[in-house]
């Protein structure tokens, strides 16, 4: 009986550690635009847990992960931040999304470190965000 309890405990622990993986805040900038203010904007927002930002060419993509109970208003948060970023960088095409797909893909793109791929992939991510149902 004791071994069952231990097994259950181990199972739960293993299951729960999966929730704690995080990428933190990451920014990659291949242009000479100042990315500091965007970074501080994301970092100072208490509702955001992780953020990955990629600035390349004339596009800015930010994938966010919001706190668990803020998920209910994640679209609103993304919209708000998108507006602020547009104010900061009027000539960039900005995509902000709290969808985990954006965070995942942007992170993958950064880790691949293949700059030729950036434009094509970033266009694809922006198109995905706009897609309805």
């Amino acid at each position, binding site marked *: 009986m004791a071994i069952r309890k231990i097994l259950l405990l181990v199972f739960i622990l293993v299951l729960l550690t999966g929730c704690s993986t995080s990428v933190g805040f990451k920014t990659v900038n291949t242009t000479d635009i100042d990315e500091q203010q965007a970074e501080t904007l994301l970092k100072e927002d208490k509702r955001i847990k992780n953020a990955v930002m990629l600035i390349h060419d004339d596009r800015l993509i930010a994938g966010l992960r919001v706190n668990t109970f803020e998920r209910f208003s994640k679209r609103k948060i993304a919209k708000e931040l998108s507006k602020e970023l547009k104010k900061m960088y009027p000539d960039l095409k900005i995509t902000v999304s709290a969808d985990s797909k954006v965070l995942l893909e942007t992170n993958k793109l950064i880790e691949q470190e293949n700059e030729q791929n950036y434009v094509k992939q970033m266009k694809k991510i922006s198109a*995905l965000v706009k*897609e309805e149902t």
Partner: protein
Amino acid sequence: MDEKKYQQLEQQITPKPKYLKNCIAAFLVGGFICFIGQFVALFYISYFDFTERTASNPTVATMIFISMLLTGFGYYKKIAQVGGAGSAVPITGFGNAMISAAIEHRSEGYVLGVGGNMFKLAGSVILYGVFSAFVVALIKTVLVGLGVVSW
């Protein structure tokens, strides 16, 4: 034996349903089905071009397909025996309702039996869903046309 006596007797004999136990079992089983569904959604998000929002469609289809297979092989009724409402309320219950009706009427032939009775239980769900979606879309179209809200 008059009516009152009979009722008393009936109440004595009828076993009390274990509400709390049933609720917990339904919660766990339903939660576990959703847990699997979450993994399916994650699979579609990471390996295909679906976002969190659009991944729900293929996820629902996959879950229905899995429950249809389980019903056909006779495993779903075992889950339902433990889980009760927990196995009926998620979308998997829909696949179960369809296939079990099809199996039940198999002896009446493929067209009039299986074809005619397959949607006996699940048909109302589809009809209700389609109709209410139509009504909601109609209301939204009118509101957008009037300029009250935007898409």
